[in-house]
Structure formats: structure tokens, C-alpha cells
């Protein structure tokens, strides 16, 4: 894009600056629209599984429901509890929302379509997702209220726990790809299995890790069945209890932006990102962004499906799954994968 702005007669520095800002807007604005539509899709899928109709009043097929909801919360009064810590109370939802957006900078949408093609892209995503916990913890503490505080403690422990196993899962992917760069990880998946199937997940050695990553992603975004931070039967609405109006809407948007991000990560790391599923020339005529969106939507459907069908975990079960099942399994898998690569790719142990 820098070249385009340069061709308009700008100097390189200005063109680069304008191109970067344009790139950010090109990602963030459609993302917000996508979040609105995906909330609608979530409710529709959930309703269909529960044999209900779901939103069907606002606009054709209820398509404008999210916008109506957005307008509603926008017009509401922002209530700040008198005992709350004002500054932190207001900063918390902004943190959640911002952190949900920044990770998108390194997600590749196509062969040349990535805002920041950095060497440590995967670590950047991991860093951004590890920051997400602060929105919840600060909100819980600043609300100065019991249930949000419990929720914050739960959220902190849950996210830190699952990040550990996510880290190890990512390591096995990184070892196969030989890089932390997101584009390199995607191109390494081209023809990965039998020379024509794109995607690490089709490799039997990596498929279990794809499953572990998916479940950990559910826990990391605090989606059902791991939504203990907002378990309404125990904690009212969890950390969001004291929030209203736009500060509440920011949580909403941030949460769903995070969910889409996790779907995109699933697609990029294990299912070939913007590559078509099979390495067959006619499929490359379709733009890569289409394949990525298709995969994101499939994963989002599974997210909703899980939400509608699986009952909520108990907290001790959640912790047990993270520390006693996923952590040893993924740690073992790192050893297994590195041993396999040592034997096959790097020509034996010695």
C-alpha cells in the first residue's frame, strides 16, 4: 500500500505513515462490523439448536438486531458505582477492547495482506492475548463489589493456566514451521500432508495439538463451557456486573473480537490460513482472504455449537483439565515432535 500512496506523490515516510493508518482502519472497521454480525450469528445458531427462532424482528431476518442493541446501550446512562475506583473502572473495558484489536496486526489475510509481517508474530499474538486478562482483573477489583471480584480471581487463574498449555501447543507448530513468523507458518503448511493437503492439522502428529489448542482457545476467551468468569447462577454477571452503557458494550465487542481472533488463529496455525484446503492450482484463483474467512466462520460455528450444547464446567474440573491433562500432554508432545523432526528432518540424532 505504501507504493500506492507514493504514486500519489507523497514522500516515502509520509506514504508509509498514511498506509499504516489506512491498514489499521481497513482491519479495525470491518472487524467491528464482523463482530456485530457474528453476535447475530451466535444468537441465531444458539436459537436453532434450542429450537427457538432467535432474533427475527429488527430488519430482514433480524439482521440488524446487533445494531439495535448497540444503539440501545449507547443511549443508556453510564453508571459508575460510588465505591468504585473511578479511573481504573473506566480504563478496564478500554483495555479489553484495545487488546482484542492489537493482535489483529499480525494476522495474515492473504499472500501480501498483513499489516505487520514481523519475525516474532506468534509471540506477539501470545503477548497480546496474555494481556487480555487485565481487563477482567482490573474491572473486578475496581468495581469494589463481591461478585466481580470473585470473577476477576477466577478469570486471572483460568487464563494464566491455559496460556501455559497454549504456549506448548504453539511450540510444536513452530518447530514444524521453523519460524515464529505467521506468513512462514502458513506457507510451511502448503502441501504438508502427502504433498497436496494444506494444513498442519491433517498431520496425525499435530492433530491432537489442534484439538488441545481449540479447547484452550475456548478457555482463553472464557467462552462456554469455560465461562466461569460470568457464571450467572453463581456470580450474577461476573466482572461485568457493575458495568452499564458503553463501558459494557466495549466488553461485549472486545469479547467477540477475541473469539474471532481465536478462530483466526486456529485457522492460521493448524488449517492453512489463507491457503485453500488442497494444494490444487484452480483453487488458488479464489482469493486467499476468502479461504481464511471461510475457516474462521467454520470455527465460529463450532464455538457457538459448543456454547449451545456443552454444560458449564465446575471450577476444579477446569483447573484439572488445564494443569493435569493439557499441560503434561502438550509438554510430552513438544518432546515427541522435536524427536520426530530430529530423526526425519535433521538426519538422525548424531
Amino acid at each position: 500500500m505504501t507504493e500506492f500512496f507514493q504514486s500519489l506523490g507523497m514522500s516515502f515516510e509520509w506514504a508509509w505513515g498514511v498506509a499504516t493508518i489506512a491498514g489499521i482502519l481497513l482491519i479495525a472497521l470491518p472487524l467491528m462490523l464482523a463482530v456485530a454480525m457474528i453476535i447475530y450469528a451466535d444468537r441465531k445458531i444458539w436459537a436453532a439448536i434450542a429450537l427457538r427462532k432467535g432474533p427475527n424482528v429488527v430488519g430482514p431476518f433480524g439482521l440488524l438486531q446487533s445494531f439495535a442493541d448497540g444503539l440501545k446501550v449507547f443511549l443508556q446512562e453510564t453508571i459508575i458505582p460510588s465505591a468504585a475506583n473511578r479511573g481504573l473502572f473506566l480504563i478496564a473495558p478500554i483495555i479489553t477492547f484495545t487488546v482484542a484489536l492489537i493482535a489483529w496486526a499480525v494476522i495474515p489475510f492473504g499472500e501480501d495482506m498483513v499489516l505487520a509481517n514481523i519475525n516474532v508474530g506468534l509471540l506477539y499474538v501470545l503477548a497480546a492475548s496474555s494481556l487480555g486478562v487485565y481487563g477482567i482483573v482490573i474491572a473486578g477489583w475496581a468495581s469494589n463489589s463481591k461478585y466481580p471480584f470473585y470473577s476477576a480471581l477466577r478469570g486471572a487463574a483460568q487464563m494464566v493456566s491455559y496460556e501455559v498449555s497454549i504456549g506448548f501447543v504453539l511450540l510444536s507448530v513452530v518447530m514444524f514451521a521453523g519460524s515464529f513468523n505467521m506468513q512462514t507458518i502458513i506457507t510451511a503448511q502448503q502441501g504438508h500432508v502427502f504433498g497436496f493437503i494444506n494444513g498442519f492439522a491433517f498431520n496425525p502428529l499435530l492433530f491432537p495439538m489442534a484439538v488441545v489448542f481449540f479447547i484452550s482457545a475456548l478457555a482463553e476467551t472464557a467462552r462456554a463451557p469455560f465461562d466461569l468468569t460470568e457464571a450467572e447462577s453463581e456470580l450474577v454477571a461476573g466482572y461485568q456486573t457493575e458495568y452499564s452503557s458503553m463501558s459494557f458494550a466495549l466488553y461485549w465487542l472486545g469479547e467477540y473480537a477475541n473469539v474471532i481472533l481465536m478462530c483466526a488463529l486456529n485457522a492460521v496455525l493448524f488449517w492453512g490460513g489463507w491457503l485453500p484446503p488442497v494444494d490444487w492450482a484452480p483453487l488458488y484463483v479464489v482469493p486467499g482472504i476468502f479461504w481464511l474467512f471461510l475457516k474462521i466462520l467454520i470455527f465460529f460455528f463450532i464455538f457457538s455449537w459448543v456454547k449451545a450444547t456443552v454444560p458449564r464446567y465446575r471450577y476444579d474440573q477446569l483447573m484439572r483439565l488445564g494443569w493435569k491433562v493439557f499441560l503434561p500432554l502438550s509438554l510430552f508432545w513438544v518432546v515427541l515432535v522435536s524427536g520426530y523432526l530430529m530423526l526425519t528432518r535433521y538426519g538422525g540424532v548424531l
Partner: protein
Amino acid sequence: MGARNRREPCRRCALPLSRSRFLQGSQDNVIQAFAFYLFATIVIASGALTIVSRNPVHSVLWLILAFFNAAGLMLLIGAEFIAMLLVIVYVGAVAVLFLFVVMMLDIDFAELRAGFTRYLPFGLLIAVVLLCEMIFAVGVWNFADIGPDTRMGTIDPDMPNIEAIGRALYDRYLLVFEGAGIVLLVAMVGAIVLTHRERGGVRPQNISKQIKRRPEDATRNTQPEVGKGVEL
């Protein structure tokens, strides 16, 4: 093909080549200096606020901000791997646990302030010692007659950050690195041994027993006669 090449990241600073060329251009120093002073100011300011804040939770949050901006400084000198690790490990995990503990503490502020003057001499002493050490370290680093090889650990400038660190850790300092790992392992085991205690009178959950339990084990279907009920 030309477009592809420009997309390829500069190996040294992880920015795309087009951007690193931009940084090496005329405005190089201005932008880098601006970013440096921005990050450095925030690090120092939030470091100071960490100490000055009356509320311990605020202190931890300022500390987190300091970590975050320190990561920005690391990025500026091209140590992107360390910068990301700083955010993942310190901001994402250590500081969260820190915050976790501090939030649950019931702190008496009056007592805290009374302690401040009592421990002030100690604190000052430690600060002076640390300052002297830093001055010595930087001084030796700058003026001693060490070759560039020893200083940089013979890192090839064309090598990506992660690879360079990997070479140093798993090649040159392998034994030391593994020794550090063992020390950490011992510390971890020690912490678990110290805090883990068997308590009587609790009924721990046996997960496999829970999963194995079937409805037939717990319920039975009977047809009691009228007025007789079920005997247990």
C-alpha cells in the same frame, strides 16, 4: 518478485525491509529518539509512581506499565524476542499473580506508612549499593579493553534474534543454562513440598471414580405398594 522481496523482514530489526530502510533514512534519528524518550520517560515515571502510590494495587499496575514500556525499549534496540518474552512472562504471568496476591491482601495503610520511616535507611543503603554497581558495570562495559567478540557474544548481525539467543543458550552456555533449569526445578519442587500438606477430614475428589459412576449404581427403580413406601 520485487514486491515480495520488500515484504521480507529485515533480519536484524524484524521490521519489513521497506520500513527499516525508512528508519535508516533521514528521519531515522528523530523518530527513534522520539520513541526512546517516550518509552524511557514512561518507564521512569511509572517506576517512580510504583513507589509513591499509596494503594498497593495501583503500585502493581504502575509496575506493569513500566514492564510494558521497558519491552518497548527492547524493541527499539532490535531485541524483539526479549521484548515479547518480557510481555508474555512478566506482564502476562508474573504480574498477574502479583496483582492477584496484592488484591487479596488486607493492608493496613497506617501501619504501612509507619514502617516507611523505619526501613528508609535500609532502602537508601540498598539503592546506593545498586546505583554504584550499575555505574561500575556500565563504566567497565564502556571503557574496559574488551574486544567486540566478547561483548556481543559473537552474534552474526544477519542472524534472527531467536536463532542468536538459541545459539548462545544451547551451544555456548549449554551447561550453565541446564544448571539454571535444574535450580528452578528444585525451587519449584521445594515450594510444592513446603506448602503441600495432607489435611485430615477432607474428602478429595477421585475423578476416575466420578467418571466411572453410572446411574445404575446410584438409583434403582421400584414399584412400592400403596401405603408401604420404599425401604432404604
